[in-house]
């Protein structure tokens, strides 16, 4: 018993000597994700009865010292086709700026940005899940190490600083030295797992680690959403004019 405690203590000491939870999540946050990225997202929503619906989105992202710009063009289903969504996120922590182009209105409209916990297109992902949550929004602690698919992962517990969070805490399995998350669990205030993110496929493209297939399961609603990232490319020759009102109206003809 004493030896088990000793080993556990040594393990904890060695972990804390290595990297703190904050440092791990900072590594995840600042991991090289390319100056820009383009991809086609196929989102498959499965409800509790097992019926599925599919959404298709073409997405472009650009990062600079000010923050991140992202534009999404909705390709399917037909009732949302030609809708586009543009967001500017800021490194200094300002609220995001977001605009939507609705072809029926033929107008680009600024939209309220307090959507972080809202469902993204009716899926099990929130807008927060789809973006990159700043590490300073939570307190982090490395609680153990585990191996997933032969890769050593640091399991990081993150507790939101906000007053009334949707989830009381999350656990993230982060591959050591690659700083990519392979699994995440979202815990409800009652201690049960509310949502679970599982990574089915990831790869290195243009020198950047990218998750190409993931599934978010909502255990509360018994629903799930799978996102497949197709045709992913990084560090493209993207002009600033891609992230403008003009491009929102033109559509994904870059």
């Amino acid at each position, binding site marked *: 018993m004493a030896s088990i405690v000793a080993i556990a203590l040594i393990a904890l000491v060695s972990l804390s000597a290595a990297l703190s939870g904050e440092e791990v999540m900072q590594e995840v946050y600042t991991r090289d994700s390319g100056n820009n990225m383009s991809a086609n997202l196929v989102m498959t929503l499965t*409800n509790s009865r097992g019926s599925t619906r599919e959404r298709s989105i073409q997405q472009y992202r650009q990062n600079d010292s000010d923050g991140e710009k992202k534009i999404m063009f909705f390709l399917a289903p037909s*009732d949302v*086709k030609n809708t586009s969504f543009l967001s500017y996120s800021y490194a200094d922590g300002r609220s995001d700026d977001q605009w939507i182009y609705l072809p029926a209105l033929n107008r680009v409209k*600024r939209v309220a*940005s307090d959507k972080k916990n809202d469902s993204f297109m009716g899926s099990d992902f929130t807008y927060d899940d789809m973006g990159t949550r700043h590490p300073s929004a939570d307190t982090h602690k490395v609680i153990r190490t585990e191996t997933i698919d032969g890769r050593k992962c640091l399991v990081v517990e993150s507790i939101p600083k906000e007053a009334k969070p949707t989830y009381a805490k999350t656990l993230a399995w982060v591959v050591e030295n690659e700083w990519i998350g392979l699994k995440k669990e979202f815990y409800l205030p009652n201690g049960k797992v509310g949502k679970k993110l599982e990574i089915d496929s990831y790869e290195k493209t243009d020198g950047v680690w990218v998750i190409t297939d993931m599934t978010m399961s909502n255990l509360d609603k018994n629903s799930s959403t799978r996102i497949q990232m197709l045709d992913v490319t990084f560090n493209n020759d993207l002009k600033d004019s891609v992230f403008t009102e*003009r491009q929102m109206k033109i559509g994904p003809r870059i």
Partner: protein
Amino acid sequence: MRQTKSKLLVLTSIILTIATLSLSAKSIEFNGMLRDYLAYTFEDSTFAVHEQTLDLTLTGWGDNTHMVINPTIYMGDNQDLQLGIREAYIDFYLENADIRVGKQAIIWGEAEGAFITDLVSPRDMRSFILADFKEIRKGVPAIKIDYYKDAFTFEGIWLPKFIPTSMPGNKSIWRKDMNPPFDTATINIPTMPDANLENSEVFGKVSHFGSKANWALMGGYAFTDEPYVWKITPPVPTIDQEYGRYIMGGGSLSTNVGQTVLRLEAAAYFDKPFAAVTKAPVPSATVEKHHQLQGLTGLDWDLWGMQMSTQYIFGYVHDHHDKLMEQGKALKEFSHTFTFRVQKTFFSDQLAAKLFTYVETDPLNALIRPSLSWTIEDGVVLEGGLDLFVGDKDGTFGSYKDNSLAWMAMRWYF
């Protein structure tokens, strides 16, 4: 019979044109929407409207060009078959400019469900303001040039030929009774301006798109989209109407205030023509020009997963007097209208609940529009709702009190 045949000929021509273009153009997409709409009016307990709509959109892409054709077909029990091309235009994309030539719907401003600076395209008021946003705007033949410089856009529009707002037909439940002395009058079809260069309309806009704010300044030399009375001929009054010129200048802005979006929009209409009607002893009319102001303040925010929006719309007519009339109704010196919208989705966006309300304060009257839409499967939507006109019968909405209705619709997007 001959009319139906010619309409079918037009329809066939449209389909053949689309098919031919589909075969020849480089990159063609074909989309559309089929809708069946049924409305039940409470006052007379009848299915007052049962209408089918086919809205087709053919989009073609070249290397630096883009083409859109949007034919529409409306058919129903109590209306004639209506065929139309809502939009048909070609875009040319240059390095820093876009040129759009053809029949197009142009929408300006920040208002939702109100028309302040949004005066380039006339409206289709055949279903009052109950039609979809897309359908309420008419396409107009125009040449539009947008030039882009950094975050600024300079827009110039030329409409060679004036097109007025479409008003409800004689059989429509939306045809409004006019106030005396027009109620018993013979009303002639409004006189259209001659289709010449002098009578073309021009508009210009400078806009800025940025993180702090989006703003625009715009102006135009336009015709009144709705006609006004310019002559009353006794003894049984015969009413003659026309469209007149005025200059419009305005601006709009939207910005984030915390987590809320603030929208502002205002326009001044200079020397806008109105009818000044003397009712007794003998009805007569003269045309007077008055300055008019309209403004809007709007807020959009999210609360408990619901999208909320509210607007205050203000109107003022300079040098107002009691003889001024507009659309057969007394024109008010001041007008105050509020709108409120709340919507929320459920079950992974399959069910959407929405409430949109207009409230006019003087006289107090309102349009209350609760609705539900259920996405049965991708692209197939079942909808239902109420359009309740309440309040004073002299109000914009209360005057349609007898038209309060329940409706349902099925849409198929392809």
